[in-house]
């Protein structure tokens, strides 16, 4: 976290010249000096850094070069849109992915498994933006039943704007969340399948069979519980990846979230937004990892007991 903060700080300070971006190339020297003074760029580096950290803790990320607005305001506006999209996609990807993964892992050679696998492989090979374009073409251009851009009607809850409460908001969510979740879903399917297949070959499964335990119990109780352990890790990484891929989905669907804000920032070298985005994402990642570790602790007795004994 600290490392990310430092990287984004150095980005902020040493990369490009913020004075140039704020004042324009043709500003007078006095004007430049004034801006430098206001921004505190004449102070020693460590003071600047501690001020930078202090600002972040207070939720102050500076002012966007391009949009000339407080970055924290911009993020406050955009964050709900991205989080809702990621949330819906994550649930889709993990639940459907796990179910299909378990099925294909157990019924290894069945026809349906093979179909699912071929489709999942196609899913891995389809870049997110192509999925998005195809869905838009099919449902918006040809069929015209779902909107191709925007969030639809949103309800303002004061600190949060949600699209969950209106029909058009929910409708607008369908295509982007499918687009976003498809790639991750295929990933989950393949991982869970591989894990299940490996577990079904272990000695303790063979021993359970030798004890006469029924096949369904073995598959859905013994194997499944072991097979779900990696799903927890994947869920963590998954949400991170979804946040990253939301950049693409948001671009394709003109979804007013953090991702489209960020991609514009990259395009226009708007460093305050870039560094703020990085810090936000890093923060979310750290939180996710923390939650994953805790979940592990509760699910796997081997980890739990090792911790207790030491």
């Amino acid at each position, binding site marked *: 976290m600290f490392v990310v903060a430092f990287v984004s700080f150095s980005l902020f300070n040493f990369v490009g010249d913020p004075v140039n971006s704020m004042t324009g190339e043709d500003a007078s020297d006095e004007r430049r000096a004034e801006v430098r003074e206001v921004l505190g760029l004449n102070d020693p580096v460590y003071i600047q850094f501690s001020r930078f950290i202090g600002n972040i803790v207070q939720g102050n990320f500076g002012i966007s070069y391009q949009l000339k607005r407080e970055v924290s305001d911009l993020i406050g506006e955009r964050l709900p849109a991205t989080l809702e999209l990621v949330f819906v996609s994550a649930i889709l990807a993990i639940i459907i992915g796990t179910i299909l993964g378990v099925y294909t892992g157990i019924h290894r050679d069945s026809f349906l498994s093979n179909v699912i696998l071929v489709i999942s492989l196609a899913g891995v090979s389809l870049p997110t933006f192509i999925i998005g374009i195809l869905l838009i073409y099919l449902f918006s251009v040809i069929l015209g039943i779902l909107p191709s851009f925007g969030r639809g009607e949103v309800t303002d809850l004061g600190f949060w704007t949600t699209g969950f409460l209106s029909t058009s908001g929910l409708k607008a969510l369908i295509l982007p969340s499918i687009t976003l979740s498809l790639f991750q879903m295929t990933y989950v399917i393949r991982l869970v399948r591989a894990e299940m297949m490996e577990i079904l070959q*272990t*000695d*303790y*499964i*063979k*021993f*359970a*069979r*030798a*004890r*006469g*335990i*029924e*096949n369904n*119990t073995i598959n859905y109780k*013994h194997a499944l*519980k*072991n097979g779900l352990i990696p799903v927890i890790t994947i869920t963590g990484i998954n949400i991170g990846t979804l946040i990253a891929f939301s950049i693409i989905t948001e671009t394709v669907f003109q979804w007013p979230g953090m991702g489209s804000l960020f991609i514009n920032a990259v395009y226009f070298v708007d460093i305050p937004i870039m560094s703020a985005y990085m810090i936000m994402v890093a923060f979310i990642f750290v939180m996710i990892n923390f939650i994953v570790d805790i979940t592990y602790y509760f*699910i*796997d*007795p*081997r980890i739990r*007991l090792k911790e207790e004994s030491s």
Partner: protein
Amino acid sequence: MSLLEIKNLNISYKTRKETIVASSNVNFTLERGEILGIVGESGSGKSTIANAIINLIDPPGEITSGVIKIDNNELQNNEEIIQKIRGRKIGFVFQDPQTSLNPLFKIKDQLIETIQTHLKLSYEDALKKSINLLEEVGIEDAYKRIEDYPHQFSGGMRQRVVIALAISCEPDLIIADEPTTALDVSIQYQILELLKKLTKKRNLGVIIITHDMGVIAETTNKVIVMRHGVIVEQDNTKDLLTKPKSTEARSLVISVPPTNKKIHRFKLISPDGKEITSSSANLTKNIIKTWGIRENTNKKLLKLLNITKIFDDRSISYRKKLIDEKAVKAVNDVSFELFEGETLGLVGESGSGKSTIAKIITGLVRPTTGELEYNNFSLYNSKKKYQINKSRGQIQMIFQDPYSSLNPRFKVRDIIAEPLKFFQKNITKHDLEQSVFDLIDIAGMTRQSLDRYPHEFSGGQRQRISIARALATRPRLLICDEPTSALDVSIQAQILNLLKDIQDELHLTMLFISHDLPVIRQMCNRIIVLKNGIICETNEAETLFKNPKHQYTKELINLMPKIESII
């Protein structure tokens, strides 16, 4: 009416190149109260039969024909019927207790699940029964331990839990596939005693599959000897061990190292049934020529002084030179000397630190404290860095696992040539070729094998290649770390003979590490007994076996399975 009857059983594995017959025309019967042993070398199809009885053969193997009857009821190839019989009529015990239990479920859950699958019992009754079962297999505080997870039990205890699971639904037949191979001698004894006790008490039929003739002698009533999927001989245990008729059975019996006396060489049976005592003495002439003549001077070659090794780095404070009192010491204050030309045996159970000592001598692991001297020269400098240049090539090692000790991507020729080239930088092509030939000759392999890769050879042949590689550096000290524990007995006998010959001819000093007391007795002049990293007893080999002083040594010698016990 027999408990188990097997008639004309044929099992084969179809691979793309050929169909491998895993068992053909197998016939035998088993009565209640009887323990049947099935022996044979690896690949003889003994485990396949066990799996066939409960219809758990791994594909592509399948039963092609034959009848399996339990209490005169034929077991069809019908998964549903067999599922009801598994666990209920037949209990199964696998080799490795570490992997047989599901790590995420409590012992309680696994027992109750099995019981409720087969018997109509309420949860409370099943729990009560489970606790009784754990007590019956000798687990103390059963009502408490039943709440634990598998990894909280030691290996021996886990195997008891596995046995408790196997007998939980009062089956009539127990099949144990190498039930004690993964366990130490003392625990092996307890598990076998438990099986014997249960057989009597519950009037069970038991099949024990093993490669260990000692286990056969001490536990079974009758024995089946298998080879290439065919039963070559079956008889009651005593007759088979004293008067084996078939070549295979004779070979098995004769190659077992005797526990009660020392013999000079192992006798071997050639495929046509004759006894042979091969010798590789004449093959070493060339090597002796290039090495120069060595003589046994009986002077001190290696000295270990107060060697201690702690693997857990956190418990050592290097700065203060302090060691945490509670730290687990893999090797604890070990000192001994090794004299030129002798074979010193290091014996102990798993975790006794014997392999760690070998690694310290070869420089694979640094000692935490202590001194190591080779030819009066310290092998570790003050910073505990191995001073390999001084002893380079003089200390070599033969490893336990022939399947991982050779680099699979190298041809045998390159495996042997690499150390030669390393020590003789400007060796001519001709000399190199000659040296490689000499070495492969000593190891008793053909020169054609030089152009092949390790995976084309059997375990015994690979061990011979290992020996050739070790000799390439002209060593004076050869460390053998369980060199035969992965091999079948007849192959073990060949390799041990080869090691003896090489030592005699080349005047090597040997440090021989094993958990197998009979093997140690045959190979060594002196023996050190280790337990938990501490030396219990050091003595001349014969004195130690005839008159053990330390309690632990006595225990080991008493508990080892003895093939002579029945003869």
